[in-house]
């Protein structure tokens, strides 16, 4: 496969996953800001700006943090390259450049998403949650079309690789921000994470789980009340929760050997496979208490750095080789 094509397939699916993840993040901050006990709605609402590194860009355009403006900036503003619509646009542009490599169903799914999405800033949206649902639905549709129609070849592998690289990154960021918002003392004071009986924490953790579609999984796995320790374990270490770090890294590790490679030392993907293997093994044999002992924020920062290194290695091995 052409290096450029591989890169564009990979970024197409990263951008699409990013738009979905962004919506999940906006969804949870939106829910949190509606809680009466919320620690000042603005802190919650500003979180997505912090995570996407767009706080400065926001302030360049708006004076104050206001719920409506924030939502518009993060969701519909095409001038903001990190907004949901910008991600959909870039996903579609990448798809356009590789349309010979994807099926008609996939192209129609992603193209009609953009054709509808671009009218939203003018047309307006009935409610924020309907927008969240729409983005998630369109993302599911594209993934379903991919799963159901695309030949299992390198194109399929690079698309999946993009999905899980992006998803792991976002789950880690979301967990980082939320855990700090929910329990700022989480890194220093373990007892805070002990059985959490306070109502605000319950709602906060459940909003996080719901935004990652992991609420039901939590109850099926633990059959117990919500607490920060178990939520952390679920989202980092459980192999059977599709948006957990472990699940994403297992997928990445499984995909890499399926990509066409030159044999032995000539395989440009060797370094990628080593990195992915190391990451997956760390999670497979990790324990939540070790993570919390080391400090969740510090641990997640380390994970994000390794995930960035992996992304770099993917780029060098497949997109820039020759």
């Amino acid at each position: 496969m052409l290096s450029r094509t591989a890169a564009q397939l990979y970024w197409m699916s990263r951008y699409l996953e990013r738009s979905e993840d962004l919506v999940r993040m906006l969804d949870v901050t939106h829910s949190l800001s509606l809680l009466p006990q919320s620690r000042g709605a603005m802190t919650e609402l500003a979180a997505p700006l912090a995570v996407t590194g767009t706080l400065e860009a926001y302030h360049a355009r708006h004076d104050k943090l206001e719920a409506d403006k924030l939502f518009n900036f993060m969701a519909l503003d095409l001038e903001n390259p990190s907004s949901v619509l910008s991600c959909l646009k870039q996903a579609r542009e990448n798809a356009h450049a590789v349309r010979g490599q994807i099926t008609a169903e996939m192209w129609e799914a992603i193209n009609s998403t953009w054709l509808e999405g671009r009218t939203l800033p003018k047309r307006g949206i009935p409610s924020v949650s309907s927008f969240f649902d729409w983005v998630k639905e369109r993302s599911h549709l594209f993934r379903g079309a991919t799963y159901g129609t695309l030949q299992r070849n390198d194109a399929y592998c690079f698309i999946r690789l993009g999905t899980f690289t992006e998803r792991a990154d976002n789950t880690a960021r979301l967990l980082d921000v939320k855990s700090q918002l929910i329990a700022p003392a989480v890194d220093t004071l373990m007892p805070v994470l002990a059985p959490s009986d306070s109502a605000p924490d319950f709602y906060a953790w459940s909003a996080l789980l719901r935004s990652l579609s992991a609420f039901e999984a939590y109850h099926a796995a633990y059959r117990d009340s919500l607490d920060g320790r178990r939520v952390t374990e679920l989202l980092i270490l459980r192999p059977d929760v599709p948006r957990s770090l472990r699940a994403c890294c297992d997928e990445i590790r499984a995909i890499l050997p399926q990509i066409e490679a030159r044999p032995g030392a000539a395989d440009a993907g060797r370094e990628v496979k080593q990195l992915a293997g190391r990451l997956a093994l760390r999670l497979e044999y990790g324990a939540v208490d070790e993570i919390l002992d080391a400090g969740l924020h510090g641990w997640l920062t380390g994970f994000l750095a390794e995930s960035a290194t992996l992304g770099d290695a993917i780029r060098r091995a497949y997109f820039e080789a020759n």
Partner: protein
Amino acid sequence: MHALTLPAPGHFDEMLLASGAIRPHYQAFANWLHAQTPEHLAKKRAEADLLFHKVGITFAVYGDEAGAERLIPFDTVPRIVPAEDWSMLEAGLRQRVTALNRFLWDIYHGHEIVKAGLIPAEQVFANAQYQPAMQGLDLPHGIYAHITGVDLIRHSDGGYYVLEDNLRVPSGVSYMLENRKMMMRLFPELFARYAVAPVAHYPTLLLNTLRHASTADNPNVVVLTPGPFNSAYFEHAFLAQQMGVELVEGQDLFVKDEFLYMRTTVGPKRVDVIYRRIDDAFLDPLAFRADSMLGVPGLLSVYKQGHVILANAIGTGVADDKSIYPYVPDMIRFYLKEEPILHNVPTWQCRKPADLDHVLAHMAELVVKEVHGAGGYGMLVGPASTQAEVEDFKLRVQANPSNYIAQPTLCLSSCPTFVESGIAPRHLDLRPFVLTGREISMVAGGLTRVALKQGSLVVNSSQGGGTKDTWILES
């Protein structure tokens, strides 16, 4: 049920006689049409629009910011061609394209046709489309134009005429294929009433033609596109996918040790044949336009060593230039010793003083075109222009006569077409695609373009034209 507007007297309509009677090959269609309600047909047209949009069959219009991507309007009344018409056209196209390839070989080798005095030397060698780099170069099988699109029109006498030959990068074949798919999806019942020659195997014929162009075993064929912002990008991606070959951009290719490679995830891979959809000038910044970001540095040198095949070859533009066009019937007689089957439109060459006088005196009745123009830009349709426009154009022609040719305003045939007020005759042309490989091959069909404005004779999509499905009937 449907008010069919009759063609104006003296016009040739594909479906209707002046009396309103239906031509025999359209009778079954007319019966079917009569039984449909306008609401049903309107619903089908809306369905077609929606489908084309979803599939993304769009084209970009140069310099049009707002409508960066537009649909080419699709009309659901097919253009039906009787089998006997097609067999004449097919024979004529084979003959014409064979002669054009012979001409290209000749002008880049011994110049026999010039020596014989049939074409003035300066018409060939001073032509901007003539590529001196091609002189003496031997291409496999002597093929220059692997893919040719010939624009045909039908005059009020009912006869077919060649309007122009397209030997550079003719486009539109994807619409031929998609229009057929659409008609079969919208109106399957019509295909039970008519034996319509299939066109869907065109990509297979194209791939065979491209593979045959190379002498390599199992040649690696790619489609070279300027990229997603090109007006015909949809077609480039479509053809690459249909043929199962890579769609590459200039940045994906590089020259190493006198061979051409593409960058892949498993390292460099040799490229043997390029179906290029970019013009000569942009192919190689080292040889042609230095500012081209679309091409591949060093490509010409690889090409001249025979290590890669370009389809079409470099320098084919000289043969489809409007100043060479008047000589094509002579080429057929000269190279093939045959009489031309397809006729040219009578053409005045403004570079000739007598012709120039005639053109200036009769400009309001003529169509005047730039010699190197394409896409309906830079032309004057006399009868459709104001006095001021005609006078203005005269000045342009007088300033640079050799840049212009003129032809009588042809009365392009019309075909009933859906318009705001119902169904009315609109003018059309026909572009069949001729492939030259081991032998000449073509599917029985082509792209029918239709001018959607009443009375308009300009069918180009960039000027608001639409398309129709073309049905060649099997005998």
